[in-house]
């Protein structure tokens, strides 16, 4: 009848994009007559912020304010092909396609502005606030809106771009397993603090301290949302969720949220996060896509913390009270492991 504290660690890396490549994404960008930009995709926003991150990327690459960009997505009549939102590929693949499309549109825009200002396009730059200026002489400028109007109604020029991004497809050598799985990896490490009640087998995760390396946090708020939600999902996978609690036997199959256990939002674990950013060469502004990997290290870290708390190794997920109690019984009671350096004794 004791509540034991435990601390566990795990670290991981995570491949970004479809294994072995061959998963293209396309994007189209065009300007409205008064210099607003429409980005047309068939990508899917699952709630992760696909539209928003593409909007930011397009604005950055075009050199215009984000308010002047709108992303329209997922109508197969208008949006060009995209493989889909999975495999942490959305930001990496579609982000790159958007950069390419936006870069082409930007090149047209600079040509149009150069014609209006009677200078060379190479001497122009955007200020990110809707103006195009002569480098070193910012007073000589034209707005993006006036540029678009001139392009459309005077010059007969489109300000538009197409982009595709593809990691070339490859295969596996079946004798050695040699392959080019992906071009970049995200990283994570975390420390879990939890308690285990040796009477009920209940585990309560008390705290997560984590470090996530995401290449670049393109939108820090969206990254934060992913990391907190993902870690919460990891806790849920480790301790509660399964469609087959007695796998491989098919008994006690849950059919709704009364029998399929998940923690509620109120059980979100206090989580202190550090974000590291080591840009990947071929990623959009270096961003790697934190979507999937944030849940992964939580599962083993919890298992390791449970072992540290009571000396029971639960090697089969989920780590249910039943498995912990059976382990305690087999061990003849709780056998707390060594307290870790830096842990309160």
């Amino acid at each position, binding site marked *: 009848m004791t509540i034991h504290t435990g*601390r566990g*660690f795990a*670290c*991981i*890396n*995570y491949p970004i994009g479809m294994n072995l490549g061959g998963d293209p994404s396309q994007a189209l960008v065009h300007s409205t007559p008064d210099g607003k930009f429409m980005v047309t995709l*068939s990508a899917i926003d*699952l709630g992760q912020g696909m539209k928003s991150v593409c909007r*930011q990327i397009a604005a950055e690459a075009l*050199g215009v*304010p984000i308010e002047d960009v709108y992303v329209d997505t*997922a*109508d*197969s009549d208008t949006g060009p092909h*995209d493989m*889909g939102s999975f495999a942490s590929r959305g930001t990496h693949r579609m982000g790159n396609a958007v*950069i390419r499309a936006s*870069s082409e549109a930007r090149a047209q825009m600079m040509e149009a502005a150069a014609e209006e200002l009677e200078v060379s396009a190479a001497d122009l730059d955007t200020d990110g606030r809707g103006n195009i200026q002569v480098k070193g002489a910012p007073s000589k400028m034209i707005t993006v809106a006036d540029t678009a109007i001139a392009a459309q109604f005077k010059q007969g020029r489109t300000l538009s*771009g197409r982009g595709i991004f*593809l990691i*070339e*497809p*490859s*295969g*596996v*050598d*079946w004798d*050695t397993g040699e392959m080019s*799985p992906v*071009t970049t990896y995200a990283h*994570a*490490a975390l420390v879990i603090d939890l308690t285990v009640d040796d009477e009920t087998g209940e585990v309560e995760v008390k705290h997560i*301290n984590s470090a996530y*390396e995401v290449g*670049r946090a*393109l*939108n820090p708020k969206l990254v934060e949302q992913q990391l907190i939600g993902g870690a919460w999902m990891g806790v849920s*996978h480790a301790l509660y*969720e399964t*469609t087959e609690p007695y796998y*491989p036997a*098919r008994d006690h*199959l849950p*059919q709704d949220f009364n029998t*399929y256990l998940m923690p509620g939002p109120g059980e979100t674990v206090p*989580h*202190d996060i*550090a974000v*590291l*950013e080591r*840009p990947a*060469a071929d990623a959009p*502004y*270096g961003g790697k896509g934190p979507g999937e990997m944030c849940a992964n290290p939580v599962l*083993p870290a919890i298992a*390791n913390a449970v*072992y540290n708390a009571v000396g029971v190794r639960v*090697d089969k*997920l989920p780590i249910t009270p039943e498995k912990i109690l059976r382990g305690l019984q087999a061990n003849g009671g709780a056998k707390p492991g060594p307290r870790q*350096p830096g842990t309160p004794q």
Partner: protein
Amino acid sequence: MSIEFRKDLFADERDDNLNEIGKPKQRQDIGGHVRGRTAYYDDHLFDGLLHMRCLRSPHHHARIRSVDSGAAERMPGVRRVVHPSDVPNNLNTLLSLIGFGKDDEQLLSDQVVRYMGEPILAIIADTEAQARAACAAVRVDWEVLPHVLDVEEAIAPAAPSVNPAYANNTFDYGPYDHVKLRFGDAQAAFAQADHIVEAEYEMSPIEQAPIETCGAIAAPETADRFVCHTGTQALFFSLGTAAKLLNIASSRLHFIGGTVGGGFGGKVDSITEPMAVLGAILTGKPVKFQWDREEEMQVGAPRGAERWRIKDGVMADGTIIARELTGFFDAGAYTRLSSYAGTKCTGHLPGPYSIPNVAANTFCVYTNRTPATAMRGFGITGVDFAIECHMDRVAEVAGIDPISLRIKNAYRDGDMKAHRRVAKNCALVESCQVAAGKAGWILGTEDMAASSMAGSTPERASIPQTALDEDGKINERRAGRTATTSPVKGTKQLPAGTHGRSHVAVPVQRPDMQIAPERVGHDDPAARGAAHAPAPVAPPVAAPLQPAAAALPAAAATPTPPRAQPAAASQPTPPASAATPPAAQAPQLQAKPYKPDEPFQRGVNRPGASRFLSGARRR
């Protein structure tokens, strides 16, 4: 709750002064989400919307002797009973869109069911309640067949065969019934190790559990087309799958989605879309096909179960010199995406560590359970759980701090990974240091001084001579001629240094599409190079779609599919001579050319892999 951005780390690799990137901009769609005005697929209402429900198998494995839907057809509100014969091209596998694997699953099954919940018939009625009632009135005469639910029982010679496309209950990976990873000689290295650490791990299936269940609403559009509002995670995957199953030109399908109430991997399978479109075709009316919560939980594909065995050879100082892994992905009755998890996972082994000897066998196994599919962390979550629990076991045996053990073995820039590609852009060491620091977990000075950018050695950067075997050829295991699922002792030696080339992004098709190097925000050699040499290399011609469209039955003598630009031929260093360990009789393998550009086998056993590619049936 707190979040900090450690801008001090890797600061010289980034430009942090970009205009929009790196800013906490509000989401474009936040207003609609917060006010509850955002339209999801189920918000598209149509007058006279019909509802479709499926009749499902109550058995794990059974033959359908007969189906009597006569009473159901006469029930109130019933518009149409949909039989398997109503599906124009009733056999598919999801990854046929990228030419991977054989067609193995029917949209509605006509003869045998292979998992509990498998649909055999659908009823379209005015209301959902009427459709449910009619399904309950269908009489089916089942002949129950023996089933198998455990992955290792399923690959035993006497096990019931689950899926006729893969009669051995294993997916075919080239000539083998599993994916091999061979790097160095793990068997030989175990003999040198101070400790051997072995354990087995398992993960039960997990439901993606989106709040919005899978579904689609399809309706006839003008111009002889069909619109489909869907919650898919992959619009063109679903469109292509519908076009193939229904044998309809992709140009006649108009798919609209993009705003999804949670997916987590469970909305790639593209079942509800062809069902809804089929309903609209057969009735000429708008039809909704939506899973209820029970279907989402038990019929919709979960993250599949995995079982892993890991054996490590460890030196007294904690250096891991060999790691052997044997893994089983439980695909359930049909392939869906599990085959892909096998290769994805194998490319991930042995985890983010530099281990000079690695051997792994990864199986994708068919059992009589709900087919598995993708979920957040697909192919990786289960083995990461196993590896990271195992690292703690190793730390305990070696008497080393668990984080210190990881830093010691962590991969560094320049290290050679087991899949024969050089590690770059690593950040595991720093992640460990920062997480430990936040938690007040005190590390030694050596661990705190470690860096992902330092520590590689010529030895860590090299590809060792590798022991190869030909164990586990397709059909051998079922015939009882394969003794084990674990990697066996190698019989041949592949010279050190043998590798092909890396596969990277295809360059921009026009120079205008290349972002200016000064606008990239970090160092991108491709952008740098493009500034000087704008004419990019020709893209590879062997996009998997292309050969897939010309796919023939696997057995037929196919012309070699067009190959991508030849891989820089494998370049073995001269075979390490007499000093080479295994006995004289072990023949030196002729360094055979690695063919990474030849994508997966083309095994689609239906004429014309995908209508989606052409808009017309190909033969």
